[in-house]
């Protein structure tokens, strides 16, 4: 029961691997970004968020609140969503993140690991199909 020595990859094999990885990434990443944007910035998403804010406003008005107070409270309600943008800003700032640096690195490592596993899975599926 002897182990076969690891075969050194040729430049052509490595280039082929890079091509497959880029092929998988060029398909998956835009689709992921489009779905993320569509979840927040599509017409339907706007309509749904508008319905939620409108329902909130209507409830306030029905309970007898003055119009300017109801509008202000609805503005604050919608502001909860935009504060998510502020959180993202904080995460983007180096060393001043909402998530501490060490934890942030750990999360980054985990994300990297998951992405690599997904890419390897896609490459295996492609090889099986071929």
């Amino acid at each position, binding site marked *: 029961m002897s182990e076969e020595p690891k075969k050194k990859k040729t430049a052509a094999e490595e280039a082929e691997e890079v091509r497959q990885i880029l092929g998988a990434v*060029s398909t998956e*990443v835009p689709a992921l970004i489009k779905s993320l944007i569509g979840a*927040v*910035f599509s017409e339907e998403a706007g309509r749904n968020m508008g319905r939620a804010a409108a329902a909130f*406003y209507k409830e306030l008005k029905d309970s007898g609140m003055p119009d300017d107070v109801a509008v202000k409270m*609805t503005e604050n309600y919608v*502001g909860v969503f935009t504060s998510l943008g502020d959180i993202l800003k904080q995460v983007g700032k180096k060393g001043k993140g909402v998530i501490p640096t060490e934890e942030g690195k750990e999360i980054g490592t985990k994300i990297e690991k998951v992405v690599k596993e997904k890419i390897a899975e896609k490459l295996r599926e492609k090889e099986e199909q071929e």
Partner: protein
Amino acid sequence: MGKTSSLRFILSIFGSGIALTKLLASLLLTWLTLGWKVRKARKAFEKQLIKQGMAKDDAKRIGAQYAALKDNIENAFKQSLRARK
């Protein structure tokens, strides 16, 4: 065998270039159409508010907050790119 290997190498590089171009083009198109999508979403958002009896000006002011989310996300992305440099 050497020629086949070289040909495979060149084809792989060419394929990588195409995949990379496809990725960049897709991202560029997404970025260019983002503004238009946000405008449509904001209009739909304001329409719902006006339907429930809110004044048009108030609905527009609240709708501006929704659009500001897009600016916040863009700024956060730009800051993270600057932080990497």
